[in-house]
């Protein structure tokens, strides 16, 4: 709700034309007794007098608003300019600049509205087609008086819409690995108070009465209870490599670049695990705006994670500090998922480092298949060499037990999670 500058009512070229032609020609017709000149000047004289007589008396007030300020990819928001004291205004024009990831309606970004009362509004709907934080302005507003003679202009700046990534479709059938959380839907390996059936056993002191299995107890003549596995949660630590963006992004309706795939996949994985009651954390590295979300669960946390993903600004290269992400965010029992195009070896270095500290790690390769780098033969050759090196690095990582998976939507992580569940009970070596 900010308007940066306004210019009071000023006469435009149309008014000057009408006044100059009207006054000069009428005066000339009288002085030189030229009825032809009088006839030719008549429309301009009438327009000049009409325009002057209906000149707006007061400057209007403009209040610009954007609603909703936060949308998902593909959804629309609307900038609305409310004008008060608009008496004498003929029509109002709103012009929104054309932005990369905002599609205004109409496509020109120009809205013209008739004004017939002292209160008027002009609105420009805009559809956001890519995640991120997008500036809408500056939006120029011009009020025009009768015959276009006078105009009042304003610039409305400072509006921004946050576009949350639309998580890709994702689902995972196998249960994830063991965890020591307190709540959640994941069956733990240990018996406890849960819903998953574990077996029947004799009653012990402390057992709840509602757990007694009466049919078994009557048959055996001894009290038995239904034992269950405890329901526990998993800490899923997401790492998003935002050092660079590869491939062309066409927004929600077009092709996905590497960072598009990373962001949407991270959103999908977070949504999936959070809705199961697990804890999810996020760390974005390489972005101009550092983003980090501590582990938590719940729908509100999903919004926090999507908000952090929307703040990623990848393209500017900046050297990244080496070293694995350690600390409170990543504990030894977390399931770490790294999303990266793997063009830089940093993500793989981090993945190896995390795995060496006992974490279960998977890497999701988000590099699009049809990346066109440059028409320059030398650059093309360098890119092909880098892709070969990348393949070697990926094989090396896989050899030490870290799976590198492609992102295919639903079931992308199923083989990995199944393997993790299988290995959950087996002893593991970890460097502590």
């Amino acid at each position, binding site marked *: 709700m900010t308007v940066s500058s306004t210019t*009071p*009512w000023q*006469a*435009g*070229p*149309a*008014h*000057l*034309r*009408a*006044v*100059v*032609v009207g*006054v000069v*020609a009428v*005066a000339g017709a*009288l*002085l030189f*007794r*030229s*009825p*032809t*000149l*009088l*006839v*030719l*000047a*008549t*429309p*301009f004289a*009438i*327009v*000049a*007098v*009409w325009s*002057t007589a209906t*000149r707006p*008396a*007061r*400057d209007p007030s403009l209040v610009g608003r954007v609603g909703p300020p936060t949308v998902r990819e593909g959804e629309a928001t609307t900038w609305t300019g409310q004008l008060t004291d608009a008496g004498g205004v*003929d*029509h109002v*024009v709103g*012009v929104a600049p054309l932005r990369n990831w905002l599609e205004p309606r*109409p*496509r*020109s*970004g*120009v*809205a*013209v*509205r*008739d004004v017939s009362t002292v209160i008027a509004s002009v609105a420009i709907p805009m559809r956001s087609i890519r995640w991120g934080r997008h500036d809408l302005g500056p939006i120029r507003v011009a009020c*025009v008086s*009768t*015959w*276009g*003679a*006078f*105009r009042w202009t304003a610039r409305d700046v400072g509006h921004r819409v946050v576009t949350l990534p639309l998580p890709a479709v994702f689902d995972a059938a196998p249960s994830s690995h063991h965890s020591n959380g307190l709540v959640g839907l994941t069956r733990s390996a240990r018996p406890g108070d849960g819903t998953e059936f574990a077996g029947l056993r004799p009653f012990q002191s402390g057992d709840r009465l509602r757990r007694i299995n009466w049919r078994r107890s009557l048959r055996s003549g001894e009290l038995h209870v239904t034992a269950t596995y405890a329901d526990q949660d998993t800490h899923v630590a997401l790492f998003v490599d935002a050092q660079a963006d590869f491939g062309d992004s066409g927004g929600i309706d077009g092709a996905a670049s590497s960072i598009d795939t990373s962001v949407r996949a991270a959103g999908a994985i977070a949504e999936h695990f959070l809705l199961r009651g697990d804890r999810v954390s996020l760390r974005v590295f390489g972005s101009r705006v550092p983003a980090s979300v501590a582990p938590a669960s719940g729908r509100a946390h999903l919004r926090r994670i999507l908000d952090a993903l929307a703040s990623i600004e990848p393209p500017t290269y900046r050297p990244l500090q080496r070293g694995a992400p350690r600390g409170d965010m990543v504990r030894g029992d977390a399931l770490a998922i790294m999303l990266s195009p793997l063009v830089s070896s940093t993500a793989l270095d981090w993945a190896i480092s995390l795995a060496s500290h006992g974490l279960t790690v998977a890497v999701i390769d988000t590099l699009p298949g049809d990346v066109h780098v440059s028409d320059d033969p030398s650059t093309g050759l360098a890119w092909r060499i880098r892709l070969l090196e990348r393949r070697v690095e990926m094989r090396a990582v896989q050899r030490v037990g870290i799976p590198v998976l492609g992102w295919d939507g639903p079931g992308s992580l199923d083989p990995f999670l199944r393997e993790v569940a299988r290995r959950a009970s087996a002893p593991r070596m970890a460097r502590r």
Partner: protein
Amino acid sequence: MSRARDPLQAGTMQRAVDELLAVSRQRWVLGIGAVATATTAFAAASVASGGWWLPGLVVVIASAIVSAARPDDHTGLVVVGLVIWQWLARVDDVGTPWLPVAACCMLVFHALLALTAVVPTSGSIPGATIARWTERTAVVAASTVAMWIVVVVLERRDLPGNGALTGLALLIVAATATAIRARSVRSPLR
């Protein structure tokens, strides 16, 4: 060896082409209408005088095209001035029906430029706004035709000139001009 293209110039050209492609269909229609009315006003003088002044016609068409492309500058004033100059220099018959035609054409030319001055070329003006402007233009055009009829009737009566009346009329014109100027430049209430 071929000369390398100036990237700066190529960018400017590309921008110009993009801007041309972005012009809305309605804006093309209104622009063509502005050029057509200016040309018609000039042609009316040629028809009324019985001779064509081709250099003048070319200049008027070129100025009208520039005015239609950039309605928010003063090229329109040049077009109107040329048309009036053509009438004064070549036509001496106030009773010709081409005179109100030319006056109305110049009115429409002025209205089209005024209407499109603030709206970017890629934008479209709602039909309701165009209808309202059409009504207003029709009212002024009718007044112009009425003025022409009055002038023709007075011309045919061949009344003698009256210095006092002319002076009074000039005084009224001067007072009106002063009032218009005062209202046009004063700051409105905030």
